[in-house]
């Protein structure tokens, strides 16, 4: 019963969070100077009438309050609106861009989690040795590198070996399944690697810190005294007990997967959601921005909710 209360409270909190975030987003985007009309009305053959026509079409001639009510009504009906820029449903635009983004960012994030966890465990286990110094300093080195710079360096290093832009080679002649998969894999490698390298340092530090804490516990000393193998101690006793902070970080990272990676998508010309959001900001495409941030909000809130529920499983102290 106590567990059910906990779950219901977390879900209610998540719903309120989404509503508040949606409302803040509505206001925030409209604070930026200028509207989509000032850009879109400036095409070579346009007349003055275009500005008025666009304002009316986008509903920007209405008060902010009216716009907010219309936005909420549409949202309740599952309608994210029409993009100002390409006049297509926001849901369709987001779906395409999300499908493009997910593999690249997911691979990069998973890579960073795996490498970060591994190096964090090694650094903690080999505390005070040159191994720790090397793993921590290289993790910090990558973590502090500007993402776009690292991406450009990888482009220069792998020029001619791996593709430097786009998601696929659209000019392949009738590729079979495996050829297509290989092509996609070669395109996704550099952007995912860039993302993974930039992100893994964060995991290294968190895992190292959590592991150091658990490695100092009495039960670890007992395990060592019992003659258990180091790997068994790490896997069965230390890492499991260090999982709480790691779970939080993993959940947060996975929540942000849908946000894409603006810099990486720009450097590698990846047609993902990060670039789309950046373009939408420049164009003041409110429906696209609202849609993308709604998606991000829901994703982050849901992942946090999952993390909360995992806590419930991982740490019985929460319910006692």
């Amino acid at each position, binding site marked *: 019963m106590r567990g059910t209360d906990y779950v219901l409270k977390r879900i209610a909190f998540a719903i309120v969070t989404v509503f508040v975030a949606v409302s803040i987003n509505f206001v925030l985007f409209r604070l930026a100077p200028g509207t989509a009309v000032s850009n879109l009305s400036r095409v070579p053959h346009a007349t003055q009438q*275009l*500005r008025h026509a666009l304002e009316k079409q986008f509903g920007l001639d209405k008060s902010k309050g009216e716009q907010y009510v219309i936005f909420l009504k549409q949202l309740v009906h599952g309608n994210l609106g029409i993009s100002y820029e390409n006049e297509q449903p926001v849901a369709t635009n987001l779906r395409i861009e999300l499908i493009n983004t997910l593999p690249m960012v997911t691979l990069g994030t998973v890579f960073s989690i795996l490498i970060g966890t591994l190096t964090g465990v090694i650094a903690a286990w080999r505390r005070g040795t040159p191994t720790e110094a090397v793993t921590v300093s290289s993790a910090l080195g990558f973590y502090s590198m500007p993402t776009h710079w690292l991406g450009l360096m990888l482009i220069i290093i792998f020029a001619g070996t791996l593709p430097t832009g786009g998601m696929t080679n659209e000019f392949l002649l009738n590729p079979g399944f495996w050829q297509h998969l290989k092509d996609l894999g070669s395109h996704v490698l550099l952007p995912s690697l860039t993302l993974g390298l930039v992100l893994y340092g964060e995991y290294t530090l968190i895992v190292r810190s959590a592991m150091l804490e658990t490695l100092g516990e009495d039960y670890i000393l007992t395990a060592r005294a019992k003659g258990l193998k180091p790997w068994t101690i790490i896997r069965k006793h230390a890492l499991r007990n260090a999982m709480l902070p790691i779970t939080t970080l993993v959940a947060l990272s996975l929540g942000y997967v849908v946000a894409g990676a603006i810099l990486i998508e720009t450097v590698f010309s990846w047609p993902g959601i990060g670039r789309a959001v950046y373009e939408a900001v420049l164009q003041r495409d409110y429906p696209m921005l609202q849609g993308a941030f709604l998606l991000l909000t829901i994703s982050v809130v849901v992942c946090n909710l999952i993390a909360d529920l995992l806590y419930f499983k991982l740490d019985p102290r929460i319910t006692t």
Partner: protein
Amino acid sequence: MRKRWLAALLLTSGALIFATGAIGSGSKSTSGGTFRLGTASGIDSLNPYVAFNQDAYSAFEYVYPILIQYDSHLHYAPFFARSWHASKDGKSWTFKTQPNAKWSDGKPLTAADAAWTINTDLKYKSGATANVAGLVSHINNAKAPNATTLVVNYAQRPSPSYVLGQFQQFFILPKHIWAQHLGKKGAGLKTFPNNAPVVGSGPFNLVRFKMNDVALFQRNSSYWGPKPKIDEFGLQQYSNDDAMVTALKAHDLDAVESVPATTMKTLRNAGFVVEDVKGLDQTDFIINSNPKKKHHRELLNLKVKEAFDHAIDRKKIVSVVYLGAAQLPSTIIPASAGVGWHNTSLKTPSFDLKLANKILDGLGYKKGPGGIRVANGKKMSYEVIIPTDVQSLPRTFLIVQSDFAKIGVQLKQKALDSTAAFNQMAGSNYTYQGFDLAMWDWTALIDPDFMLSVVTCAQWGGWSDSAFCDKKYDRMYSQQQLAATPAKRRQIVWKMQAYLYKHRPYLWLANDDQVSAVSKSWAGFKNTPQGPFNELNISVLTHVHQK
């Protein structure tokens, strides 16, 4: 357990990757080959009533029929219209169109499609078709008495070159497709996605399109004009110039539409053909010329503007910012825009700080603390708005700022994204009270009408970024549209340039070159002032072929 987990991860990654790419990949093997062109811009919409980017309009040039195109000397030449003539009173124009033409879906393409497109644009010009309203201005209606005759009736006698200029940019849409999507008051014309494969009737069919990624065009076997030599061409969009140039060097691309000046030497050394031609883009220094301007009214003084003009070291800008790949500008119409429109009698203002100082001294604007002059009791210290999307401007600004300091004028950079920049310049009510100076760029068309229009009073709140408003100039603008002969129009166009040269709403900074690069294994790829992938004609991609 561990193996199962790893396998699941690999499978999930593979499935994600494949799901993404499964949306579209693969193309047919062809004898004429596929020409792969890289671009930094890209197509933003396949709907001509929505599209904004030049690449979109260039794509329409190859997909839709157009009445008239430019020839290689930038003279008007037949395209879907094989011939044309005006009535005696000049108010009615008759175009004889291509017989036996077909749309890519096999339906007949006739003059009725052209008449329908013109009349539809007229009908909804205050709403759905407002972005092409300028192309049908002065037109009363259009009729198609038979399949190969189009008659366009004007409200008043237009200038012949104005008419031809209008129809060189006018895409004819298939009535049988678009008439189904009118919706309420034509609103459906804008929401119709016009997804690939697009029904068109140009030398190529646009068969596949992925936003922000790629557009693939296939040779149109039912095209009524000269057939392209290649079978396909693809337009691959890059958001990073370095990655695009690297892709070209790795032969993942065959050509790049526009390369940065910094890569010209490297590409030439790597064996690519780099073609550098005079372009249509000019960067400018904008002086708020609003006659009702409230602050810093000294900026309306023509002598102050003249002094500023002499304080700009254009040779240094061309040499440092563009590494020589730019020209010295002089007027609002660049030298590469059309034949004879550029007023050659107007010369680039000299860089003469002594003269600039002398002019300002003569106006009584003495230097105060910090060496900054004082005009009308206030420091000559100004914010310069700079849009962040014009890459050459930050470096150009530093050069201008340094020289202006030598004439006692302080400039401070205010970088904004282009939407915010225009919003600050025009103001929320389009009163143009919120700025003094700015820097931006203009890309001219071949016909001078557009560039000359941006400084008319009618463009306040539209294209105007200088707030210049002068009734004498506006009268000349209308006259050039209605001039009876091209020679008469040219005379007025030259006069208008001279008028702007004197009143200086813009101080022109540099006229960028258009630089393209292509692999040596291709021939027939020619650069133009508007780039190789342009709205001028269909010449480049119908002539390009493998060596």
